[in-house]
């Protein structure tokens, strides 16, 4: 649909990119070749087109030669398309009249033969020259951004991000699956490398969240539906029934005391199953909100309907409501932060370490609870027989750095193993052995912490443990668990008898990560963690605008890094909110109403749910704010009623023709 009456005047600019391109391509030759192509008015080569003088060169030529189309032949558009579009705009030309040709990544870096590379560059330039003639002026669309934000996951990352956003004056909805916020950090006793108490630094933040006027906290809740697009999301949150009215409960614990179960009977999740809880419980004393919850899977009332409901009678505030139903909340937000965290590797998946078989094999999280003063053993490190261990082995890399479980390094295990070694030593005076493959302590004060441990008479054996067994070969091993590993520093296999084994389990994506990924329309990398837009330059962005990620849902990460990422994600969200609007790329699909037959073929194939059906007109219509320009519907439409800006048939076909026909 280019204006055929308009005279096309094209300027072609070939970049040397220092030696990057000029070293492998005859740039002068390409420029001379381009000058002879139809409609080309001027063709130039230059050392660095992206530099200020380079950009000014283009702007000046546009004015001087009255150019109306520009072809920049340089690097990948991912890097500099924006630069050259701006340069074009500055000279008063619509930015979509500029077309880029990538002769660096696609040519000079991947071709060894100078002549071949030059020929290929000429072909690509010829194609772009033919294409650009048909390009149209397009405008970006502006969409306002709703200033409210949704944060999913109330661990340390979600808590930090929520406080940052709320302190910046934004309305925050914090949704947490469990009955309390705090996440994994609430389970820990001390934090490395400073050994400050996890609860002491975390719980003030938890109560700030609860009390913040800008934060709406929904625990025991899950996001059940998401619609909309950047700046304008409609979200449905399902609040699961906790059978205790949150506004009435003050956490007095009377209901728990008076429960028909005199003693705890069910594995206490917070204590990693090391203690028992009742069907009505508060996970831990600083739980936020401090509201009891009734577990309907174990509560007699829900199982048989024959409970005397002593808890209900005991509550003088009438807070217990057995008839509570799931509650649906509908909210509108402009941005979303996913801080859904990780799950610990299931140690039963490596049977040769004996977890679940030998009672005195523990996971690191179990030991975290054990060393905690308010934990199931009141801070005493004890074997299942209730004795203090005389020797303890800590096995690193359980479920990490292993092709059969997870290939990645979980990043935190070396440090927390050192921490646990220190704490176990401090609590019991036992001989503590660390079995590691490589000691990884990259972080501020981390190596110094390792050094401290080296001086604390803790044993370090460099070797992957092949098995934990009760097979003994000498009398002193009787009654012990034997850890077998090659001491690779010495080159000899060692058998270490211990009373307790601690498995340093790694971090893995949560089981529900895929579900969340689909709901928010983002991607996961191959191992299953949420995928960032760029591993270095956009680590908290996703490929879906307005959805950000932070913390261990993106990859194994410790507390300082999670908090830092949460800050970064909050800042990115604030940028969107405070700019007030978003600009949408115009490379979207559109429907030519006259041709659309209303067959609905396009409706279900759109991966972004951007196509709706207008029943009155009996035609499909595309929401440009949702459309990502993937082209799927364009290809699928049986009557060719769907077209796409910047990818019109005439543009593509002339480009293809340009490649093949000299």
């Amino acid at each position, binding site marked *: 649909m280019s204006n055929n009456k308009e005279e096309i005047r094209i300027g072609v600019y070939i970049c040397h990119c220092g030696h990057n391109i000029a070293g492998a391509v005859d740039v002068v030759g390409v420029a001379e070749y381009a000058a002879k192509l139809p409609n080309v008015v001027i063709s130039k080569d230059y050392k660095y087109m992206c530099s200020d003088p380079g950009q000014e060169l283009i702007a000046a030529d546009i004015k001087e030669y009255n150019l109306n189309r520009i072809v920049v032949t340089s690097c990948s558009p991912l890097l500099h398309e924006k630069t050259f579009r701006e340069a074009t705009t500055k000279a008063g030309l619509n930015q979509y009249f500029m077309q880029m040709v990538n002769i660096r990544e696609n040519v000079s870096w991947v071709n060894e033969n100078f002549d071949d590379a030059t020929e290929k560059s000429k072909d690509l330039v010829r194609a772009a020259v033919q294409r650009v003639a048909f390009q149209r002026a397009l405008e970006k669309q502006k969409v306002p951004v709703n200033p409210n934000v949704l944060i999913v996951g109330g661990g340390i990352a979600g808590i930090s991000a929520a406080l940052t956003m709320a302190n910046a004056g934004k309305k925050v909805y914090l949704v947490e699956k469990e009955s309390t916020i705090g996440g994994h950090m609430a389970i820990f006793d001390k934090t490395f490398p400073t050994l400050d108490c996890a609860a002491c630094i975390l719980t003030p933040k938890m109560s700030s969240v609860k009390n913040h006027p800008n934060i709406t906290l929904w625990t025991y809740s899950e996001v059940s539906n998401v619609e909309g697009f950047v700046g304008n999301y409609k979200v449905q949150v399902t609040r699961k029934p906790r059978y205790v009215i949150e506004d009435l409960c003050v956490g007095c614990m009377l209901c728990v005391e008076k429960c028909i179960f005199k003693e705890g009977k069910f594995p206490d999740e917070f204590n990693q199953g090391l203690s028992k809880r009742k069907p009505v419980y508060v996970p831990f004393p600083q739980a936020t909100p401090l509201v009891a919850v009734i577990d309907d899977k174990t509560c007699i009332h829900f199982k048989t309907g024959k409970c005397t409901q002593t808890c209900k009678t005991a509550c003088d505030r009438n807070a217990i409501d057995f008839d509570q139903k799931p509650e649906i909340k509908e909210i509108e937000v402009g941005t979303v932060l996913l801080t859904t965290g990780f799950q610990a590797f299931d140690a039963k998946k490596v049977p040769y370490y004996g977890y679940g078989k030998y009672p005195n094999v523990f996971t690191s999280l179990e030991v975290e609870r054990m060393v905690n003063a308010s934990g199931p053993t009141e801070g005493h490190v004890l074997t299942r027989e209730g004795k203090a261990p005389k020797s303890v082995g800590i096995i690193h890399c359980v479920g990490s750095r292993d092709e059969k479980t997870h290939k990645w390094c979980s990043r935190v295990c070396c440090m927390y193993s050192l921490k646990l070694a220190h704490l176990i030593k401090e609590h019991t005076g036992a001989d503590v052995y660390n079995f590691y493959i490589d000691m990884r302590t990259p972080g501020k004060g981390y190596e110094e912490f390792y050094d401290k441990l080296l001086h604390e008479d803790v044993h370090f054996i460099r*070797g992957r443990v092949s098995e934990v067994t009760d097979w003994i070969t000498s009398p002193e091993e009787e009654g012990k668990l034997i850890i077998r*590993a*090659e*001491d690779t520093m010495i080159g000899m296999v060692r058998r270490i008898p211990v009373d307790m084994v601690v498995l340093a389990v790694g971090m893995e994506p949560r089981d529900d990560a895929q579900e969340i990924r689909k709901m928010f329309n983002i991607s996961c990398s191959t191992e299953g963690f949420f995928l960032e837009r760029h591993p270095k330059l956009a680590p908290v962005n996703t490929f879906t605008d307005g959805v950000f990620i932070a913390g261990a849902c993106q990859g194994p990460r410790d507390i300082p890094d999670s908090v830092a990422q949460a800050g970064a994600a909050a800042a990115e969200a604030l940028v969107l909110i405070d700019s007030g609007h978003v600009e949408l790329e115009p490379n979207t699909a559109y429907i030519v109403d006259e041709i659309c037959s209303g067959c609905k073929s396009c409706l279900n194939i759109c991966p972004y749910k951007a196509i709706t059906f207008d029943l009155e007109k009996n035609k499909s219509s595309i929401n440009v704010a949702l459309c990502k320009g993937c082209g799927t519907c364009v290809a699928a439409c049986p009557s060719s009623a769907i077209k796409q800006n910047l990818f019109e048939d005439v543009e593509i076909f002339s480009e293809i023709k340009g490649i093949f026909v000299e």
Partner: protein
Amino acid sequence: MSSTISNMPVLNIKREAELDKNFAKTIAKLAHGEQIYGCIQCGNCSSTCPLSPYMDYTPRKIIAMVKAGFREEVLTNKTIWLCASCYSCTVECPKGIKITDVMYALKREAIQNKIYPKRFTIPAMSKAFYDTVKSTGRSNEVALLMRYYMRTNIFSALSYVGVGLKLLKTGRLAIIEKQMKRKQDFKKMLKDSEN
């Protein structure tokens, strides 16, 4: 003092020129995989190996030496022959290295280049087994052990007389074996594969 030092053998130094830079490549090809390049020297193989207590070098060291090109040392030592093919190293290796196949590859390489420890009993057993199967298509314990003891030490067979007699008494020795019908085909195929 200086004389003492001058009499000391040079043990722990290796010059680059003494290494076979293609050794790792050769072995990786023979051993079904490039995984050996990914070894992180964790020692799980040595630890799980039931025979490593008797080896000159632990399996972990063998992999390191293969990678670095210590051809001579690797092919002439007993470690590779002590591998009983129990595969525990292979299934446990966190980097998926087929260590048992590496050991096989090294054995074959040693035999091909005739640099295995000749007086050592295990290669002799392998050869005896190979020859027995080659001649009859099946392995026969009597024939196998005869070949083996002829190659090694005929007198050492005496210590097994007791076990042998008991096997005979309980009918567990097959002295006369059922022959294969298409033995000629079988032999032809073997001849082809040796070329």
